[in-house]
């Protein structure tokens, strides 16, 4: 009976999704056709003059190892001048050796005589020469110029098109082997958002979905998914020891599907309306509520009360319906909440996806794409969740596998998250467990003791996650105080100050570790009291005060601006002064912004490099009309975002940053911008 319900649930999800998918796939071309016809009949729908981007749609891709195809779709009645096409590849390991353009038509001009022009579609084939170790991506700069026949001419247009080069047979194996490295090298060359948007723009629905599933898989290797592991593990462990693999698989699957569906819903909403998703989901009350849920769960882990969500359902379903009954909806709710709250961590890909959705105005496709991404992100969660059921009794092995995953995470991650540190702490606490679990596992086969310890560890982790969330809404010093409290209380529970006779050798180790944590907790407390807000450098405030007498000297001093007009007036001024402008979007809830502040913006080399750049900051915490207008102007959905404007006051779109960058990378990036 219970299994039947589960199967039904899975089927319902699968069928609804696929039905939606197929009806869209089939309706896509049809309704596009309708749109076209409709658009042509009613002139009102299309303006008299097209934007140059609409009149001349350009795209480029590599068609073979050494040929790039650049394609223009030219609107009816518009043309491009043949002799105005220009191509150049950025980077010195790539050269264009030959350009082949279609012949075009001879157009008679009363003043200038005859000129060659191209109507409709133009396919330019560029032959390129590359060195063996050339990068897998390149930026192609194209210049072109054209007119609407007899009516309007456009100024010369330059566009930078990112291209994924097709690797030669030798190079392919090396790039293919390490997907995450490939993704990283892309992010270095142009901003992450660009890459994702470009990837999406010219692919079919199914391809989009697959690509996004892949993105999800890669994201699963970042710390973004990381906070979900303790959540899911906590749920599964909470089920008790009579957990089968199949059941934990169902729980994991439910969790992941719920999470992916949430992204899908966000995608659909973003496609239909113009909402600031992050601001909405980062509302202080939502965060506080979620933190409270975590605290609640954590305390159940410590055994303060028995959180038997299933038990009330137990009594209803009683004997026959089994142990799982009511938990699935609960698990689904956790999945939804996790997606909303943890989501902003994956801001760059999310922003890319949402930008894409807004470009196509296809809410449904956006939803599906995000669903696929969520599923991709969830694959490792399912694997971990499922394996837990099997491996859980053998504590050592299970911990080892988590540790292994953590190793991968720490290698590929860019962002330093409070959660990660906490996990490391948990690992430290778990080391004795691993040792015991592996060496003495045979001696203590199926005791509940180890389960209890793991429960406690997860309890602490959950509290950590709760504090981590609260960091976004609380003043820095207060958050630091909470961290300190967490460390101190955990240390006390570990027996840091326990002076009774040791019961076993291991207890000594526990107490030692506890004492270390107690010390760190106290340092954090001192840091918090002195106004510090950085968990990793708690005493910075104190030390700086002693040395320089100025606590806040460390971060860049921005000029704050408000609204589009505010920006424009400063930009005008910057043009007069012949200076570059850096615009940083900031909000109190934006954790990445704060990380940037702590790291890159506090680095003296960054200060020096930006000394001749006008630094602007737009605080969009309030998200009022002016803020929204400013975000919309740049097709942004919220911070984090750092924009660069050249000396003409024009944004360097290809250098836009929408995620965290390490100081070194940020330096490189800024250097690229200002050296151009």
């Amino acid at each position, binding site marked *: 009976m219970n299994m039947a319900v589960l199967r039904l649930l899975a089927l319902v999800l699968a069928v609804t999704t696929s039905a939606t998918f197929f009806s869209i796939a089939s309706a896509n071309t049809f309704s596009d056709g309708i749109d076209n016809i409709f658009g042509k009949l009613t002139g009102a729908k299309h303006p008299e003059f097209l*934007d140059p981007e609409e009149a001349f749609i350009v795209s480029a891709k590599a068609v073979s190892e050494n040929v790039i195809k650049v394609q223009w779709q030219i609107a009816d009645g518009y043309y491009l001048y043949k002799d105005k096409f220009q191509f150049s590849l950025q980077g010195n390991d790539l050269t264009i050796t030959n350009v082949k353009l279609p012949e075009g038509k001879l157009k008679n001009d009363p003043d200038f005589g005859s000129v060659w022009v191209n109507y409709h579609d133009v396919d330019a084939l560029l032959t390129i020469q590359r060195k063996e170790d050339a990068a897998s991506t390149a930026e192609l700069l194209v210049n072109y110029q054209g007119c609407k026949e007899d009516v309007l001419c*456009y100024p010369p247009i330059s566009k930078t098109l990112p291209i994924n080069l097709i690797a030669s047979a030798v190079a392919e194996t090396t790039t293919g082997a390490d997907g995450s490295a490939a993704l990283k090298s892309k992010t270095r060359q142009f901003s992450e958002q660009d890459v994702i948007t470009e990837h999406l723009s010219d692919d079919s629905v199914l391809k989009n979905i697959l690509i996004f599933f892949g993105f999800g898989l890669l994201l699963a290797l970042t710390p973004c998914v990381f906070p979900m592991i303790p959540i899911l593990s906590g749920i599964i462990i909470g089920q008790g020891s009579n957990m089968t693999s199949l059941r934990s698989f169902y729980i994991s699957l439910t969790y992941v599907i719920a999470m992916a569906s949430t992204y899908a819903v966000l995608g659909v909403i973003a496609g239909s309306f113009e909402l600031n998703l992050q601001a909405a989901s980062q509302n202080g009350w939502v965060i506080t509520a979620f933190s409270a849920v975590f605290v609640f769960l954590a305390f159940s882990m410590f055994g303060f009360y028995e959180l038997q969500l299933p038990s009330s359902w137990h009594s209803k379903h009683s004997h026959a319906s089994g142990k799982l009954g009511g938990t699935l909806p609960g698990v689904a709710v956790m999945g939804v909440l996790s997606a909303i709250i943890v989501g902003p961590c994956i801001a760059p890909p999310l922003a890319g996806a949402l930008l894409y959705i807004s470009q196509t105005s*296809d*809410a*449904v496709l956006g939803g599906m794409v995000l669903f696929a991404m969520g599923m991709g992100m969830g694959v490792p969660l399912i694997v971990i969740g499922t394996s837990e059921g099997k491996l859980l009794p053998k504590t050592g092995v299970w911990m080892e596998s988590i540790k292994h995953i953590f190793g991968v995470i720490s290698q590929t991650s860019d962002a330093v998250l409070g959660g990660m540190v906490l996990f490391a702490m948990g690992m430290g606490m778990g080391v004795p467990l691993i040792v015991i679990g592996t060496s003495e596992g045979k001696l203590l086969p199926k005791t509940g003791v180890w389960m209890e310890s793991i429960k406690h560890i997860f309890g602490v982790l959950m509290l950590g996650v709760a504090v981590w969330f609260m960091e976004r809404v609380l003043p820095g010093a207060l958050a630091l105080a909470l961290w300190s409290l967490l460390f101190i209380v955990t240390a006390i529970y570990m027996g840091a100050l326990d002076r009774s006779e040791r019961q076993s050798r291991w207890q000594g180790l526990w107490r030692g570790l506890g004492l270390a944590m107690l010390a760190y907790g106290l340092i954090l407390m001192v840091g918090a009291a002195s106004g510090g807000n950085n968990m990793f450098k708690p005493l910075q405030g104190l030390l700086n005060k002693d040395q320089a007498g100025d606590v806040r000297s460390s971060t860049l001093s921005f000029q704050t601006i408000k609204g589009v007009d505010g920006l424009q007036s400063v930009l005008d001024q910057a043009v007069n002064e012949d200076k570059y402008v850096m615009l940083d979007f900031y909000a109190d809830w934006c954790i990445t912004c704060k990380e940037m502040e702590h790291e890159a913006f506090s680095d003296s080399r960054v200060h020096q490099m930006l000394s001749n750049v006008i630094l602007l900051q737009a605080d969009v915490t309030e998200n009022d009309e002016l803020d929204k207008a400013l975000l919309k102007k740049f097709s942004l959905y919220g911070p984090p975002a750092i924009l660069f404007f050249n000396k003409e*006051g024009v944004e360097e779109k290809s250098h836009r940053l929408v995620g965290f960058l390490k100081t070194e990378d940020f330096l490189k990036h800024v250097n690229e911008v200002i050296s151009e």
Partner: protein
Amino acid sequence: MKRGTLITAVVIATCFFAGIFISEYIRSKKQVVDFPPALQTNTQDLMGKPSPGFSLMDISGQPRNVSEWQGKVLVINFWATWCPPCREEIPHFIDLQDKYGHQGLQFLGIALEDVDNVVSFANELGINYPLLVGEQEVIKLAGKFGNRIGGLPYTVILDRSGNINFIKTGPLSVSEAERVITSLL
């Protein structure tokens, strides 16, 4: 068991149609929402507003400021020699400058290109009004006058008190130009 299968089948069928319905619904919504923004809003907003101040180099390399022509009906024409429709309307502008210049009409050509081409073209046609040149700054200025797409020709007419009275993207016919000019003189 049989009953279970039946229920399953019904649920699946319902979901299937629900899926199709949802997608159609969203699609129909989308067509309403997805309306391209009108291009002319920018220029409409500018009507009656004072002209933005600017100064640019003329073809002899002298900086010229728009305030110089204050008190006149000023026809600002953005153009370029590489733009066929621009070239075609310039002879008409020369005629109109001849005809109404003494009544306080002043044409001002702003070319989006380098000086050399403009000078030879101006000599060839005998352009009888000042010509200013520039690249990025011209595009930016045209943008301030509401020319969002940067298309040429683009003509703005200011009344005697320097307020924007008329904006035209694309060629300006003699009759239309004359109508606006005479109403302002």
